């Protein structure tokens, strides 16, 4: 329930409302009891929250939110969790402006029981995951079949692994490896991410 006030553009610093009337929402700031626009866009009122917001006309900095689908690179695999750096948020074109240090707990890797994360992920893997929590730290989840590794490298020769049935195979050295792979491993389209 977001009401569009009118189709005029507001610019940073323009007065929108007062703090007695509304809460300062997305793209606004409060100064001396007056709510002002913090970015270029269209002034809207969120009736549910009773907050003033500015629907951006420009591109905006990317902040990771709960529920976002993200791509992350595995940085370390520990006995109870995987640490992955979030490198991309689905549907966004800009680099991430907030904290990118994500953690993926063992219990969040798969629907079935996982004893050791090192059987599911390895260093350098690119994974697709869903953000479960942002504060105080970014927590990821890969339970859905869409989530998991979308690109992986051979642990012996670092060559890209290709999907072969349910496991992965290195076309260079023939090494076979196991991963928690996403259902579209190897067939993803980078433009659609």
């Amino acid at each position, binding site marked *: 329930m977001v009401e569009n006030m009118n189709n005029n*553009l507001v*610019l*940073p*610093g323009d007065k929108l409302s007062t703090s007695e009337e509304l809460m300062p929402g997305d793209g606004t700031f409060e100064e001396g009891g007056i709510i002002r626009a913090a970015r*270029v866009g269209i002034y809207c009122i969120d009736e549910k929250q009773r907050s003033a917001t500015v629907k951006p006309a*420009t591109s905006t900095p990317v902040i990771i939110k709960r529920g976002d689908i993200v791509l992350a690179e595995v940085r370390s695999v520990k006995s109870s969790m995987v640490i992955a750096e979030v490198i991309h948020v689905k549907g966004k074109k800009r680099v*991430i*402006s*907030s904290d990118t240090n994500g953690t993926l707990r063992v219990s969040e890797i798969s629907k079935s029981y996982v004893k050791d994360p090192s059987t599911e992920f390895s260093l350098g893997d690119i994974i697709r995951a869903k953000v479960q929590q942002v504060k105080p730290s970014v927590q990821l989840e890969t339970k859905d079949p869409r989530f998991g590794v979308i690109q992986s490298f051979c642990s012996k020769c670092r060559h890209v692994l290709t999907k072969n049935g349910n496991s992965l195979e290195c076309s260079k050295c023939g090494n076979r490896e196991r991963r928690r792979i996403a259902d579209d491993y190897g067939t993803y389209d980078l433009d659609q991410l």
Partner: protein
Amino acid sequence: MKNDNIKLFRDGKRVDGRATDDLRPIKIEAGVLHRADGSCYLEWGGNKIMVAVYGPREAIPRHTQNHLRAIVNARYNMAAFSVEDRKRPGPDRRSREISKVISEALEKILLLEKFPRASIDVNIEVLNAEAGTRCAGLTAAGVALADAGIPMKDIPVACAAGKIEGQLVLDLGKEEDNYGDADLPVAISPRTGEILLLQMDGHLTFDEFEKALDMAIKGCNKVSELQKAAIIQKYKVELEVE
């Protein structure tokens, strides 16, 4: 740097035909670069300036990070071909000073608390220089930051005033800057009138200073309207397409 052979006034008009409180012609265009998060191209008299904004993104090296807010890295750079004699490329004393004062001016109006540990990189490239590049650079940076969607309290704007042949004038041109008595670049937040940058080269009496500051602020307000028009022009068109 006095030179009696050069007359900066002729029949009450300045060398380029302006009155004392006239600005040089200004052209501003927002969002000109495809790969930058925000950008602006500005022509101010003979100045040609391109600004690209990147970020907020993780500040590197890490020890520069502030865990409470973002840092602003403005980088003012003059192209080797921007002046008549070739300028030796790379940062020098002058451009480092300008980078610093512009960074500090921008820090005052951006809402940096929303992006802890990040850096906002503002690259100001002077393609052609003709007096008043720091004002032109900061003005363009303001538009580029708005174009990048970075939350801010106001669009910063800058303009200079100065003294030539004992007379106060707005927006010094090249000869006026070289042979004039004083130059006073001022950046303000046009909504509140808060001063973001104030420098002075040369000498002004206290009275002259106050008058010059007043003049520069009036100039800033004129330029501010042009900045807003540039942003509206860019995004009005895009909204109509939607």
